[in-house]
């Protein structure tokens, strides 16, 4: 069972019509733990659901664990739940996990934020600024979406380039690649098309893949064929649509499976399969685990018409 801590909401701030910042502190007095830049926490809501959000504050001397949450109309209501929090509320929090840290041997850090993907990038920028590292930030956003822009300006000074829209980004990124010194690393957080564009641009200039890092802020459900899950021991049958993840379909049917990253990375939703063939799409399980009959239903699907699981 993943460690959880009961935390108190210390403050809620509106950063934009659709974005709220929420600060969490221990219920009893005391400091919160520091964390590597780019870490995220898990906010537990609705009993067993967990949404992951990047921490935006100072990672080495944090006053609180601070997140900024975009209210998504298309999600499973986790962001709406966060937006309804008030100071004084208590929330179960999964402590910081690091999946998007800076590379300590880098000679220069090129940080690229797309929209609400600014959150872990701000954390990286604070770290580099505090330690005097060589870095620059390109913040691409749509007009009017200026979440954390003032914070970035304060932290980065002249090392911040703002890009409104794709064309401005293309020019800014191309310029950054032109002058990036040997030993640079690039980090992107944003929507998949932005990550793809950054990756393609760097590869075209000969950057090795090991220098290109990214974090997607929303799980992309890769579509697949429809199938039926049979949940044992009850024998409950649940249909999974082609555009739906298996874990979402199970939750809708009342079958709770613990999740966290929902990207096939963290291992939280590992589930035993007792019959059927799995289309494995995760990055967590080893071949040995798969052969032993485990799957990650947040991203993986059935390769057969039915899949029998025993959660």
């Amino acid at each position: 069972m993943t460690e959880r801590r009961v935390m108190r909401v210390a403050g809620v701030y509106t950063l934009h019509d659709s974005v709220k910042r929420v600060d969490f502190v221990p219920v009893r007095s005391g400091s919160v733990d520091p964390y590597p830049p780019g870490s995220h926490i898990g906010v537990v809501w609705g009993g067993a659901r967990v949404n992951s959000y990047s921490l935006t504050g100072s990672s080495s001397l944090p006053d609180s664990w601070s997140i900024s949450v975009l209210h998504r109309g298309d999600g499973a209501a986790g962001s709406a739940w966060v937006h309804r929090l008030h100071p004084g509320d208590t929330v179960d929090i999964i402590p910081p996990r690091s999946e998007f840290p800076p590379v300590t041997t880098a000679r220069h850090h090129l940080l690229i934020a797309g929209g609400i993907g600014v959150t872990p990038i701000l954390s990286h920028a604070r770290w580099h600024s505090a330690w005097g590292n060589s870095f620059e930030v390109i913040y691409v956003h749509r007009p009017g979406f200026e979440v954390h822009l003032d914070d970035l300006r304060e932290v980065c000074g002249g090392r911040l380039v703002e890009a409104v829209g794709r064309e401005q980004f293309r020019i800014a990124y191309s310029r950054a690649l032109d002058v990036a010194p040997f030993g640079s690393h690039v980090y992107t957080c944003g929507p998949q098309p932005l990550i793809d564009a950054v990756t393609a641009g760097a590869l075209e200039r000969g950057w090795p893949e090991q220098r290109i890092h990214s974090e997607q802020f929303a799980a992309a459900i890769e579509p697949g064929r429809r199938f039926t899950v049979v949940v044992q021991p009850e024998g409950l049958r649940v249909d999974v649509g082609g555009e739906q993840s298996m874990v979402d379909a199970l939750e809708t049917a009342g079958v709770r499976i613990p999740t966290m990253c929902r990207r096939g990375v963290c291992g939280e939703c590992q589930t035993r399969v007792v019959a059927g063939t799995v289309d494995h799409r995760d990055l967590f399980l080893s071949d040995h685990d798969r052969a032993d009959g485990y799957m990650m239903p947040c991203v993986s699907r059935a390769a057969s018409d039915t899949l029998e699981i025993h959660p």
Partner: protein
Amino acid sequence: MVSRRWKDADVATSVMAGVMPRPDWAPISVTSLPTVNGMPVTGMTSAWAAVAYGQRAVSLAQEALRGRPVIVTVTTADSPSGWENAVDEVIDVMRAGDRILLVGPERAVLVGAARARARGAIDAEIALIVTDREPGDSEIETRRQRRAFCGHCHIDFAIDAAIGDGVNCPSCGSLLAIHHHFSRARAAFLGFPIGVGDS
């Protein structure tokens, strides 16, 4: 100070593979052309910098890089300190996406690779050509200039030895067996103290 400059020429890419034998006993990375999705980068947008130790090494570097964009080729004095400074200076003018080719005796290229990694290079960006190996040489049993690390007093020193030879540490005098364990960071073979604690 090294200045960044460009050269041009063309020749087959197979030269690189042919002149860069990968030793089967040392954890040394040898790379060739940068690739995207398994295909060589077209248009040669990334360039090579070469650092060569000695005149023969310069010729080999020029041969290996013919046909590739080259940002700088350096002839260094045949001295360890001059060599490490040259690696530093070349890295200072390189851009992300470039590659570095180190050509010279085994000891020099291993030291250069360690230096490059310490300055932010990763294995995929470092290529090596060793000039003091002849066809048929045993990687282990052939004596050559090497750097060793004394496991007793923890200093690095230069030796002319084969792996398995016994040598005395020039600092503490301990008898050391030159072990095949190689430190990439120090560019040195472990000098394993023999008989320490026996008396």
